[in-house]
Structure formats: structure tokens, C-alpha cells
């Protein structure tokens, strides 16, 4: 990797250190708390699934009936110790009213752990099996060197999504992302079963994950390629979605430390706590996380505020490291969002994309296409997407989210996706080795833009380190959005851990992180 931007490497290291301090301070806070969705996640990883007669998911039924600060594992472990029932049997009995969790007296910690740990190991083994299966597929079919073509499907009907995904895969797509139905991020439960009705997307459910996974494996086997599946690990059920993804072998997950706070008005304490456990699961299951910095520059000036992207990328990296995610699984995000009327806008885009590349040399960067300045002019839109593809190739981005000519109009038609893939393949093939051929002029526009962004990001990180991340979010530093510490949704699900609180998976995942 060339140092084409002549970056001040010492300043990069110093900025990283600042981000590390910010994340470490947060981690102390995180360690003291659990949330309702983390407890539901523990239930899911212990094998609990399904709904009660009213259609309420059993993990919710359990967690709604316990004292959360003691943790779901304490209740399940106590019942298992006394009765030898399986977690799913217990959940069903709680669901039909034959066990009342409020009347359960908890047994000693040692007995709880002895009852739960073997089951937790089973859950973890299931995840490892999926991970190995992915590795086997990638070994058999081989993996792609260049940009992975990432397209979305969003019909609202999982069966129609499968038809669209299959068509895209056969056309050349490498990653299929199923967009979630509008509003799912604000639901404090995960819907159950296959779904055929959604709004602007399809509900993320474990059954929908399973159906799509199966279809993509079939298409991949026909094509001799591994088709990756992506969904959204965000919102009020962040860790639960991570668990479902791990159990159904998803490969890529949108998973940002701050996105929910800024763009979904989810309480910041809730999000920071949830992101940690969700990322532990993603790290353990081999999922590539995608961070959401692209969103920052959708609402503010993309040239002036470019440094906030790098600032957030550096923090996301540190939160990911703390959760045990290796660099190879960090799909650090950014986007092509400059106003098309800006003179030399293309050069600024190149500068920012190359900056991300050089600050995170081993990360599979995720690059997002233009959305903010897409109009109904579908012909112009194709050219905007083409410029984006060119930056992708020149700066060696790994995950290329293909722009749709109808971005501003509707969720993609099958034909929109096909056109996008054709254009991208044409550009990537025609420019195959361009990155090796291009150097940037010392002290040219591109160099100056990148180094200015780095300097400003360092200054901002220094400020955040001083005032703390929560305070920074309160004053509206990112995307111009202010959030109060006790505002937003989901705060009632944040609970300080009790003295004997126990999450059986943290130990298992940490051991894997440390390579024990």
C-alpha cells in the first residue's frame, strides 16, 4: 500500500490513541449495565425461539417477567438446576403460564453457572459451525479480490426478495442486503416467521434470514461463488439481530456504535451498551460489520464536515476492537455525497476515500454511493453512480454498495439492479489496475484535503476525549444532531447489573478474542 497522500503518520497514531481513550472510558460505563435486549439475546443464544399464543416472542415473554438486573441466565439456570428442563421447554411453559418466573427462587451462583455454561457452549458451537461452513464455502469457491458488488433488495415480501436476490446474484452481485421494513429499528422485539408485508423493506426475522441464506447458497453453488448475505444489526434489538444472524450464517451486518443515537433517536446509553454485545457476537461469528458514517454527510456539507467521518471511523474502530472484532471484519463506512455542483468535487471525493483507505489499510472498507443529490433524472443518476464507481476502483474500496439510478424514486426494480451491476463491471474491468498506476501530486488539492481532514479529526477527537462521548452527542457535533443523555427511545430497558449478574457468553467470546 502506497502512502499516496503523504499523511502525517504520527498524527494518525495520536488520533487513534485519542479514540482509544474515548472508547475505554465508555467501556467502563458499558461493563456496569445490561439491557432488556441483551437478556433476550442470551435467551436466543441458549436456544429459545418461537412465540406465545398472543404472538409475543418467547425471549420477550421471559425478560418481561424477570428482574432484569439479575439477568435471564440466573432464572433459566435456577430452573434447569431444579428441574433439568431445556431452555425452550422453560420458555414454552412461561409462555403458557405454567411457570411463573416471579415466583422462582434463584439458586446459588455456582449452580446457575454449572447449569447454564454447558448450554452456552452449545450455542457458541452452533455459531462456530456456521463460521466454519462459511470458510469452507470460501475455500471451495474462492473469494473475490476486487470490490464486492453489494446490492439491496427491499420488496417487503421475503419470497419476492428471494427472486430478486437470485436474479442479482446471477447477474454478478456478491453481497445481497435485505433492507428492513421502515420502523423496525424502533420495535423493542423481533417479529417471528416468514413475512410477506413490509414498508420500504422486509422485516428482519430469523426465518427470513434462513430462507434467504438457503436461496443464496443454492445460487452460489450454481455459480461457483459464495454470495454474502447482509442485514441490519441496529435499532432497539441490535444484539438480538446479531444473534439471529450468527445462527443463520449472515456474513455482513450494518452495525454502528452511534447510528441509532443520531438517526433513530434511540437513547445513547442503550445504544452504547447494546452495540458492545452485538459486536462481540459479530466478531465471534466472523461477520463483517459495516459502520454508518455515510449518514453523517447526508445532512451536513460533505466537504466542510468530511473530518467528522474520519473521527467517527476511528471511534468505531476502537469500539470494535474492544468487542473482539479483528481488522479484517471491520467494514468501516464512508460515502460519495458531495454536491455535484462543487468545483473539483470528484477530487475531494477521491481525497476522502483514499484517506479512509490509508488510515485503515487492512479493513474491508464499505463505500456508499450518492443518495443525497440523486434526482428523478435517471440518466444523470447513472453518471453520478459511474463517478462513484471510479473512485471506488481508484482507491481500492472493498465493499461497493452499488448506486441505483432510481435512488430518489423507489426501492430498486430488478432492472435497476441489473443496470447498476453492468455499469460497475464495465468500469471495474476497464480500470482494473488503475490504483497501481496513480499517484497524487504532493501538496496538490487531493493531498491537502486529506491532510486537513486528518488534522481536524485529531482536533475533534481531542475535544471529545476531554468532554466525553456522551457530552459530545448532547451538543450536536455529528451530523448537526443533538441528543440528550436521558432522551430518546429505549432508556427504560437500560438496567444496572446486580451484584450476582451473569452473562454466560461474555466469557466465551472474550476467550475467543484473546485466542485462548
Amino acid at each position, binding site marked *: 500500500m502506497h502512502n499516496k497522500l503523504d499523511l502525517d503518520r504520527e498524527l494518525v497514531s495520536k488520533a487513534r490513541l485519542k479514540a482509544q481513550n474515548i472508547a475505554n472510558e465508555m467501556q467502563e460505563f458499558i461493563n456496569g449495565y445490561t439491557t432488556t435486549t441483551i437478556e433476550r439475546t442470551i435467551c436466543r443464544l441458549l436456544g429459545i425461539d418461537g412465540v406465545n399464543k398472543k404472538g409475543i416472542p418467547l425471549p420477550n415473554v421471559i425478560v418481561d417477567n424477570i428482574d432484569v438486573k439479575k439477568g435471564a441466565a440466573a432464572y433459566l439456570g435456577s430452573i434447569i438446576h431444579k428441574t433439568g428442563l431445556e431452555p425452550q421447554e422453560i420458555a414454552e411453559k412461561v409462555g403458557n403460564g405454567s411457570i411463573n418466573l416471579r415466583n422462582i427462587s434463584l439458586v446459588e451462583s455456582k449452580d446457575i453457572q454449572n447449569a447454564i455454561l454447558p448450554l452456552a457452549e452449545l450455542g457458541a458451537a452452533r455459531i462456530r459451525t456456521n463460521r466454519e461452513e462459511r470458510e469452507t464455502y470460501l475455500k471451495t469457491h474462492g473469494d473475490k479480490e476486487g470490490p464486492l458488488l453489494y446490492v439491496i433488495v427491499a*420488496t417487503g415480501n421475503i*419470497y419476492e426478495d428471494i427472486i430478486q436476490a437470485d436474479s442479482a446474484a446471477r447477474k454478478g452481485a456478491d453481497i445481497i442486503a435485505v433492507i428492513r421494513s421502515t420502523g423496525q429499528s424502533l420495535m423493542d422485539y423481533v417479529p417471528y416467521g416468514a413475512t410477506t408485508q413490509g414498508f420500504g423493506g422486509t422485516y428482519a426475522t430469523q426465518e427470513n434470514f434462513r430462507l434467504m441464506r438457503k*436461496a443464496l447458497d443454492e445460487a452460489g453453488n450454481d455459480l461457483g461463488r459464495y454470495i454474502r448475505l447482509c442485514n441490519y444489526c441496529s435499532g432497539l434489538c441490535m444484539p438480538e439481530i446479531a444473534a439471529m444472524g450468527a445462527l443463520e450464517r449472515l456474513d455482513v451486518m450494518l452495525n454502528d456504535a452511534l447510528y441509532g443515537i443520531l438517526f433513530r433517536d434511540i437513547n445513547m446509553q442503550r445504544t452504547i451498551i447494546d452495540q458492545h454485545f452485538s459486536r462481540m457476537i459479530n466478531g465471534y461469528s466472523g461477520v463483517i460489520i459495516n459502520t454508518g458514517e455515510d449518514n453523517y454527510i447526508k445532512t451536513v456539507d460533505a466537504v466542510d464536515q468530511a473530518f467528522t467521518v474520519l473521527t467517527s471511523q476511528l471511534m468505531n474502530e476502537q469500539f470494535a476492537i474492544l468487542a473482539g472484532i479483528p481488522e479484517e471484519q471491520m467494514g468501516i463506512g464512508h460515502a460519495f455525497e458531495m454536491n455535484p455542483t462543487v468545483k473539483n468535487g470528484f477530487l475531494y471525493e477521491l481525497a476522502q476515500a483514499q484517506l479512509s483507505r490509508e488510515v485503515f489499510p487492512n479493513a474491508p472498507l464499505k463505500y456508499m454511493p450518492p443518495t443525497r443529490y440523486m434526482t*428523478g433524472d*435517471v440518466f444523470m443518476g447513472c453518471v453520478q453512480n459511474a463517478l462513484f464507481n471510479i473512485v471506488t476502483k481508484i482507491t481500492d474500496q472493498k465493499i461497493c454498495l452499488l448506486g441505483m439510478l432510481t435512488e*430518489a424514486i423507489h426501492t430498486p426494480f*430488478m432492472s435497476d439492479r441489473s443496470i447498476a451491476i453492468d455499469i460497475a463491471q464495465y468500469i471495474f474491468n476497464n480500470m482494473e489496475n488503475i490504483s497501481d498506476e496513480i499517484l497524487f501530486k504532493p501538496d496538490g488539492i487531493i493531498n491537502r484535503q486529506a491532510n486537513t481532514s486528518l488534522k481536524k479529526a485529531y482536533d475533534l477527537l481531542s475535544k471529545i476525549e476531554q468532554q466525553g462521548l456522551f457530552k459530545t452527542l448532547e451538543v450536536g457535533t455529528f451530523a448537526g444532531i443533538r441528543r440528550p443523555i436521558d432522551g430518546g427511545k429505549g432508556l427504560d430497558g437500560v438496567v444496572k447489573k446486580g451484584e450476582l449478574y451473569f452473562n454466560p457468553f461474555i466469557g466465551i467470546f472474550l476467550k475467543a478474542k484473546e485466542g485462548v
Partner: protein
Amino acid sequence: MGEHLKKMKNIGYKDKYDPTKIKPYGDTINDGKIQVSFTLPMQNTPKATIAAKQLVLKMGLREPNIVLQKSLESEFTFFVVYGHLIHNVDITKIREEDSQLFKAMSMDEINEFISQNFNRKIVVVGATTGTDSHTMGIDAIMSMKGFHGHHGLERYEMLEAHNLGSQVLNEDFVRKSIDLKADVLLVSQTVTQKRIHVQNLTNLVELLEAEGIRDKVILICGGARITKELAKELGYDAGFGQNTVAEDVATFFIKEIRNRQKK
């Protein structure tokens, strides 16, 4: 398509897929979604919006969504519109023989076919006739270099191909064809304003009939606006439109010559 996908399709489509009522597909079966773009010769005003809407409603588009409306210059406005099309087609009524895919032979197969069946070279004479000066059509089919990796007829060992070029008068074309003892005549028409190509093509058939050689040659026309149906209507043996390559044309005429010999 995998078994799983077929099953998925069944579940997803349930009983919504009806081959007697096929509609355009956007992202859901039978949504009828299409996009049209056009320019109206009027100023970009609210009146233009109404005009565009009325026009697409007449086309059969429901819930039209004008996603782009912009002035090209003061008296013209450009539109991009999406909507649901009310029309459908019955694909069970399309006759098999009309929809059968024409399978072209390769250059080697064609040469082999000629050697085995005719024991001589086949003479092909081609030209862009009338006032049309465009040679890309006839060149694509005839020139050595060909088109999109398909060599032209001049490259074929068992063909004697004569490309007379463009702006060839029908009278000259007929005389030359008689001199060269042509088996096959290829006529290209590219520029097609106010149906002048139709007059020109008709005139050629009349001349050939007057000379008494219409039945002795395979007469083929080609060009971007030429269709099989139009060619037949004008008295040609075949017509080839866009995306035709030399193999398509040659396969047709060698088979046709063979069929006539058999009769």
C-alpha cells in the same frame, strides 16, 4: 433455476402469475411498473405537468409519478415518468413458429455446408441502395473485419462476396448482379426518413421482376428499421434488423438455396 427457488416462486406468486395476462415487472409480480421519458413541445409550466399526466394516462399508465420535469429550452420540456401499466399480453396466444429461436451456424459449418451441398462457391452481392450513403450496415455483414467479433461474408472461403458500397442505384445493382451471376442479393437501408426506404425496396423488387430474375435469387434486406414482417410484405425472402451478424444471414440463405434445390 434451483428447486428451492421454484418453490419460493410458487409461494411468492401463489396464483398471481397468469400467462394469459403478462404485465411488466418492477419488483413485484403484476405491479405493471414502467418508466417512460419524452419531451413535450411546450413551456415548463404547471400546464405542462397536466399535459404530461394526461398523455401517460392515455398510454395506460396509472398513478403516474413524474420524477423529472425540466426545460430543454424555453419551448420544450423533458419528462421522466413512472407508473403502473394497465395493459397486459397473453403469451399463450403467441404461435410457437413465430417465437422459435433461429439457430445460426458458425463460419466453419457454413463453409462445410456449401462444399457438401453445392460443390461451388455461392455468389453474394450486397449494397446500400438509393440515396442512402451509410455503409455500416452492409459492412457489418460483408466486410472481412465484420462486427462484434463476427467476421463478414468476405472472409468465408466458400462465398464469393461483392460489396458494392453505398448510394448504388437499383438499376446498377440489378445489372451488376446479373453480370456476377449472383445467388444472393443483400440490400441495406439505414436512413429511413418518411418511409423512403419502403419505396426504394419496392422499386428493386419491381426491377428484378421486370428482368425476370426475381425467382432466381435469394433477396434479403437489412437495416435498423427492417423487420421480418416488413420484408415479407415488400416481397423479400427475408429481412434482418438490429444485432444481426453475418452467420445469421448466411445460415438463412444457404438453407434457403438448399430448400429450393430440393423442390
